[in-house]
């Protein structure tokens, strides 16, 4: 467009966050806007940095579980899973069948609660006055009731242990989960009906924040962000951990890599999680939940391991360097959102201020995990 600019205009910097309703925690980004259009974006993180890696290096593995819960605080089961699998592989522990099944049930239910949180917060970013948010939280609470009945806590579970589980599930576990899954299906459908085909929602999310597969790989994105770009990569399929190779589920893949695809991918992942949980409930048999011979104090043999799990937001990985004592010599936490956030600038620049909020919402970041 050849428009003569006689008026002198100015790009104004706008500081968003750390106290802004849609920066989901304590994220801060400094936007430079030309009218409503974003021309530059500088993300600032670190407001929630608690030194989780350093703390883990000063604690034994069981104590570290509590720290891992508090990094990825929307999907703590996945964080625990990464840690305990890494320790088990270092020590060469065999995990009993029942423990594996329960771990998968818990992890997949946790994926549902985490994606529910995404849908709720994302729709609020897109401007729905809390309706989808309450729908999502309703379902989240039902599932968290189960978590509370099993682990005793609604958010910081501390339930997995190297070798198995801390304790067994209650007797009516299977019936309770089945009952809640009914609710969950209903909840997913409610959200689907409310948002997916809504023209206003589509207008806001289609073609926004698009990323090509090459760019996504270059930035190191993972999880739904990567799959929305058309890369069919899911650790549960590519490098199965636990016993995921025994389950029958699909990996939804997007086409355009835009915000709408990310939403669709996550919505479908919730349905697939329901499928996995149902299969795991079928296969749940009585049995031990810990290996027979467990030392009271876990000492990992010297060595190193990187273990990633497919957490709701992408690959949550743990890199442990062990020196033969009962604490890790070095514990690095590979956080999914940390990598996903790196691409934020490329996604946002050129869009409107309102889109910046939606794109940020679509990353579904957890600052506890980004800053650690």
């Amino acid at each position: 467009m050849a428009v003569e600019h006689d008026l002198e205009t100015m790009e104004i910097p706008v500081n968003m966050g750390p106290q802004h309703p849609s920066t989901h925690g304590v994220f801060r980004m400094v936007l430079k806007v030309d009218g409503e259009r974003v021309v530059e974006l500088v993300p600032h993180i670190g407001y929630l940095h608690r030194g989780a890696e350093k703390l883990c290096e000063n604690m034994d593995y069981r104590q570290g579980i509590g720290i891992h819960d508090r990094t990825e605080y929307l999907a703590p089961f996945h964080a625990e899973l990464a840690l305990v699998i890494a320790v088990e592989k270092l020590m060469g522990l065999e995990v009993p069948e029942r423990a594996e099944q329960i771990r998968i049930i818990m992890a997949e239910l946790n994926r549902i609660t985490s994606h529910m949180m995404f849908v709720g917060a994302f729709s609020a970013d897109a401007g729905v006055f809390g309706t989808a948010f309450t729908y999502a939280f309703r379902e989240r609470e039902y599932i968290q009731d189960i978590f509370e009945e099993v682990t005793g806590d609604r958010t910081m579970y501390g339930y997995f242990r190297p070798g198995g589980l801390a304790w067994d599930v209650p007797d009516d576990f299977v019936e309770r989960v089945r009952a809640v899954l009914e609710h969950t299906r209903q909840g997913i459908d409610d959200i689907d009906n409310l948002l997916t085909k809504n023209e206003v929602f589509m207008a806001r999310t289609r073609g926004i924040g698009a990323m090509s597969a090459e760019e996504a790989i270059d930035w190191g994105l993972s999880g739904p962000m990567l799959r929305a770009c058309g890369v069919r990569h899911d650790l549960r399929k590519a490098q199965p951990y636990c016993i995921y190779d025994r389950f029958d589920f699909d990996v939804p893949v997007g086409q355009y890599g835009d915000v709408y695809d990310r939403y669709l991918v996550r919505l479908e992942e919730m349905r697939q999680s329901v499928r996995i949980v149902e299969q795991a409930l079928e296969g749940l048999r009585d049995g031990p939940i810990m290996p027979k011979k467990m030392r009271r104090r876990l000492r990992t043999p010297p060595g190193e391991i990187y273990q990633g799990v497919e957490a709701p937001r992408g690959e949550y990985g743990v890199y442990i360097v062990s020196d033969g004592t009962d604490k890790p010599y070095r514990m690095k936490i590979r956080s999914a959102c940390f990598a996903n956030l790196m691409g934020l600038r490329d996604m946002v620049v050129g869009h409107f201020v309102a889109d910046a909020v939606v794109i940020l919402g679509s990353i579904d970041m957890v600052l506890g995990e980004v800053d650690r």
Partner: protein
Amino acid sequence: MSSEERLEKFRPGRDGHEARKALRVPPPRGSVFDLFKEALPDVPMEAYQAVKDVVIEVSRGDVIRVLRTAKEDPRLDFRWLRCLSGVDYMDKGLEVVYHLHSYTRNHDVTVKVRCPQGDPRVPSATAVWRGADWYEREAAEMFGLVFEGHPNLVPLLLPEDMTDHHPLRKDNPLAEIEEWQGDRLAGRAEEGAGGEEEG
């Protein structure tokens, strides 16, 4: 042994158990390392098998070449930089660890490069993967590594003026936990009572 000492000795993660070094097992035949040797016959590389991945140690001068080949060679095709971490081995130097993954071949490799603590310069991998950006910034502030060629090597998680010490180095122990119970509580209660009277 006094009870204080006993407590300290048996606190998990604080026992005097000997730190050991891992035995280095050479990687099995047909592993990723063979492909690396094929692709880079003239680069000196040392490899061993860790618990899961093959670890390849390279020198500082070769690391960018190795990483670029790993990414671009179709036999290797490591297009995803999964993770980049720093490790502090104290007097044995600092180490930068690259975890790579290939979507097509579905294999992993760990590349390591080591530098002495007095001269912590490592070439930046941002030229190979843009996604190395924040990882390197984090490693730089946490370990004092200097990634040469990085576009914007300023602290990421830590305050921007906190460049004098590096928290994840082993010479930076955790601060003492500020306890509020036990004798300290008794001491504080007196102080607190005094304070309340004043207030």
